[in-house]
């Protein structure tokens, strides 16, 4: 669907769930069948296997009219989603999906077509459609594909396929009961359990052929705290590319209690002040602020388009020297990790801003070619129904040397942000906004009264220049990034202080 502006967002729960909660209006054609919106989340049965020679034939056909890059992407996905809410296992949803997409790049042009049916005939037809953009262009001769092995950053001890549903229910129930037991003012708990196994086969005209299978778990706890005259819905998430052993380390009860704690604390929230003030952001998911504000503008597609806010700034000082920002798709089992991106480029640790100097943009195959830069492993796609585009993986402000307690105690007044919900950025202007999930006033260097969910807004260039303290306590949180397509990401940061952010409070200071 065409949106009015290009705007990229990130949030801590799935868009679908988010829309169900109807937190925000949209301009999409809301009631058209989902097929019209092209929003079908991938869901699929037995693993389709195509012979190497079949794939070669499709790639050759894709480049038969011209073009320099041809690719076939085959995907299958099995997912389970279970909802425990108001003490009931309300629903259980099983999804099976499969499909394949064929892509042709010719100069700056991309042609793409996909099919739900993975047959030679349908793939040749998709190749025919995708080749439309390359008519009359110079053609390269594709290299025959050859299977290769890659290092893996994802380890699985207890594969999802071997886990009985009862185990999933037990984990959910533990979280549910812990949340309700936390405080009598917790009136409802909602536990969303999701897991999937996504199989990928990627083959291209450069001779690449890769096959893998990625497990993913996403566990969301929401609790409703009800006070005398207000209510607050708290939220906590756990997510990894891993087997069910994730819950041995990240206890569902802990997530539930932390969520319930937020619900109760925020019942006492007072109006936040409005205007520019200093903000201390606690370590962890707060890293979404730089994911949005700085990460999206560093994506190579808007640099190649010459529209991004960082165009022409490579090699220049853009941030305070305390600021180093990294996108690293190799962090073991993290939500944003894969062994290689959805175009087959090896994952790596990419330092984007080093000690305040812009040193690298993130790229996919197309933008790397357009910018004449290396492929950084950031070409990702939501499913076979989407063209790969430049996306972040695990993005964070690298650890610094300041002590978190000193960062707070040296801040006279302002806002202490313990966690954020999510936000968005306009990558052209660099203007971003974030909504606080749990925040407090800072008075005389101390965290004091909780304040209602205020918006933080600013311009990315001002913010990274305004970061004057970076802690040594780097931590991460999982989320969902939206850029026309959804992508699993992690965002992280140590405790940081940002001078002079505009806080959208509802009272004058």
């Amino acid at each position, binding site marked *: 669907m065409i949106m009015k502006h290009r705007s990229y967002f990130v949030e801590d729960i799935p868009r679908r769930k988010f829309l169900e909660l109807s937190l925000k*209006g949209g301009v999409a054609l809301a009631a058209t069948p989902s097929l019209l919106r092209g929003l079908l989340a991938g869901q699929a*049965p037995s693993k389709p296997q195509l012979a190497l020679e079949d794939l070669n034939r499709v790639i050759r056909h894709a480049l038969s009219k011209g073009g320099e890059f041809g690719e076939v992407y085959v995907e299958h996905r099995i997912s389970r989603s279970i909802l425990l809410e108001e003490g009931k296992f309300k629903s259980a949803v099983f999804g099976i999906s499969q499909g394949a997409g064929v892509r042709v790049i010719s100069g700056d042009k991309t042609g793409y077509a996909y099919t739900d049916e993975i047959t030679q005939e349908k793939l040749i037809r998709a190749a025919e459609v995708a080749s439309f953009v390359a008519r009359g262009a110079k053609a390269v001769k594709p290299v025959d594909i050859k299977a290769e092995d890659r290092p893996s950053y994802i380890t699985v001890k207890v594969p999802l396929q071997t886990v009985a549903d009862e185990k999933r229910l037990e984990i959910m129930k533990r979280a549910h009961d812990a949340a309700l037991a936390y405080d009598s003012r917790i009136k409802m708990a909602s536990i969303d359990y999701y897991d999937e196994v996504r199989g990928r086969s990627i083959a291209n005209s450069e001779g690449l052929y890769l096959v893998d299978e990625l497990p993913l778990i996403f566990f969301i706890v929401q609790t409703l705290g009800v006070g005398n005259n207000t209510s607050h819905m708290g939220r906590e998430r756990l997510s990894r590319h891993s087997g069910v052993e994730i819950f041995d380390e990240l206890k569902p009860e802990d997530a539930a209690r932390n969520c319930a704690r937020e619900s109760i604390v925020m019942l006492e929230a007072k109006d936040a002040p409005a205007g*520019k003030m200093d903000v201390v952001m606690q370590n962890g998911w707060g890293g979404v602020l730089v994911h949005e504000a700085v990460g999206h503008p560093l994506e190579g597609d808007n640099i190649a388009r010459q529209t991004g806010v960082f165009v022409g700034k490579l090699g220049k000082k853009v941030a305070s020297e305390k600021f180093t920002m990294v996108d690293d798709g190799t962090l073991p089992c993290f939500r944003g990790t894969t062994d290689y991106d959805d175009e087959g480029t090896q994952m790596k640790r990419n330092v984007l801003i080093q000690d305040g100097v812009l040193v690298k943009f993130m790229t996919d195959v197309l933008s790397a070619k357009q910018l004449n830069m290396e492929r950084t492993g950031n070409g990702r796609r939501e499913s076979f129904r989407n063209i790969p585009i430049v996306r972040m993986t695990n993005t964070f402000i690298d650890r610094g040397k300041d002590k978190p307690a000193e960062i707070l105690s040296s801040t006279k007044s302002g806002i202490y942000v313990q966690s954020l919900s999510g936000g968005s950025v306009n990558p052209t202007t660099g203007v971003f906004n974030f909504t606080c999930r749990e925040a407090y006033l800072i008075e005389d260097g101390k965290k004091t009264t909780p304040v209602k969910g205020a918006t933080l807004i600013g311009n990315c260039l001002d913010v990274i220049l305004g970061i004057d303290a970076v802690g040594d306590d780097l931590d991460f949180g999982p989320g969902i990034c939206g850029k026309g397509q959804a992508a699993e990401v992690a965002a992280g940061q140590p405790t940081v202080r940002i001078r002079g952010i505009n806080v959208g409070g509802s009272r004058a200071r």
Partner: protein
Amino acid sequence: MDYKGLAEQLVSKCLKKGADAAEVYIENGRNLSIEVRKGEVETVEEAASYGAGFRVFVKGKMAFASSNDLGQKALEDAIGRAIEFAKITTPDPNNVLPDDKGMSEIGGLYDSQIVKIPMEQKIQLAKKLEQLAMKDPRITKSDGARYGEGEGEVVIANSNGLAKSYQSSACSLGVSVVAEKGDQKSSGGEFCGARSYIDLKPAEQVAEKAARDAYEMLDPRPVKTQKASVIFHADVGYALLGGILGAVNGERVLQGASFLGQKLGQKIGSELVTLIDDGTLDKGVASEPFDGEGVSTQKRIIVDKGVLKGFMYNTIVAKRAGVRSTGNASRGGFTSLPGIGPHQFYMVAGQAKPEEIIKATKIGLLVKEVTGYGINPVNGNFSGGASGFWIEDGKIAFPAKGLTIAGTADEMLNGIEMVADDLDLSRARTTPTFRIKLLQIGGE
């Protein structure tokens, strides 16, 4: 292919395999999207796809499975998975399916001509749109022009004998551009959507709006933190609606997670606030003859002159609340269960001209862009980023960016004191321009 026949067969198969009740939801369709930039085609995407979702009930327990492989074996497998999965859920006497055999009559949802228009003509339309949007010398860069289309069929059958289908289509056209002046960058964009190609807004109009949105925000000036009148332009008034929709969701109301849950029949806004949910408008971008589980759609008043008149329900939540479904079962596609959602949700137009509202404003902010989550549906709190124009003495004084606005739903809805006549029903969630008496604005 006769998908309705297939759906009915599959319902029988579900029952034969052990379901006490079942629903089959099938979608099939095709889509095309074209993006051009700098006068050249940048991407062309085309595909046809389909899939089926099975909702089954076994002894009052509900589960669901979907497949995009419509082969016999895959479908049987999916049904088996759903029935198996139903063993783990909790039985609930409210787990029922609708038996509504009717359908709302809506004209103009499907245009069979779209597919017959040659691809080249659609590419030319996008190119022309981009060119027109770049015409103004203040516009320096294009972020691309896009044309999209899709058409599809939705089929629902269930074990209460309900079996219905409809076809629909959609086209959209949009463009994004950048205006630059020195170090300043300002982006603007506009899009339109319609059920037919011929009902798309003229490219000139779309282009002009996108360009104006970009260049008129150049040279912004700071605004001090203060309380003042805030005018929501018709382009951004929808930012108020999302939180209200969350709060009139019947399930959230039952859960006590809605700031409007206890307010039925009470005044929640000024007399100028009338909110409608309409699934029946001819050619409507959010119209459908039946909702995501087959219940006929309606046109309903949700808020009438400031008084809250009703909530939204699907069949299961309605049964739990002891009311009838309001035809608001929403579906994210064949891969998911029906939730609760609106059709076209809008604020009814008023009498004032937008320029009269500006003229009547001594000091205030005319908001052209709102960012953030809107009103929190649980507690009614609102905080967002805003940009637009500062108004002094009834005139636009200068553009203003990087501001915040905040308040509560109560303050906002009761504070609405002027409503314009410029409602644009080509959007799914929409309001006319309106003015709120006083809101906290955060700035310098």
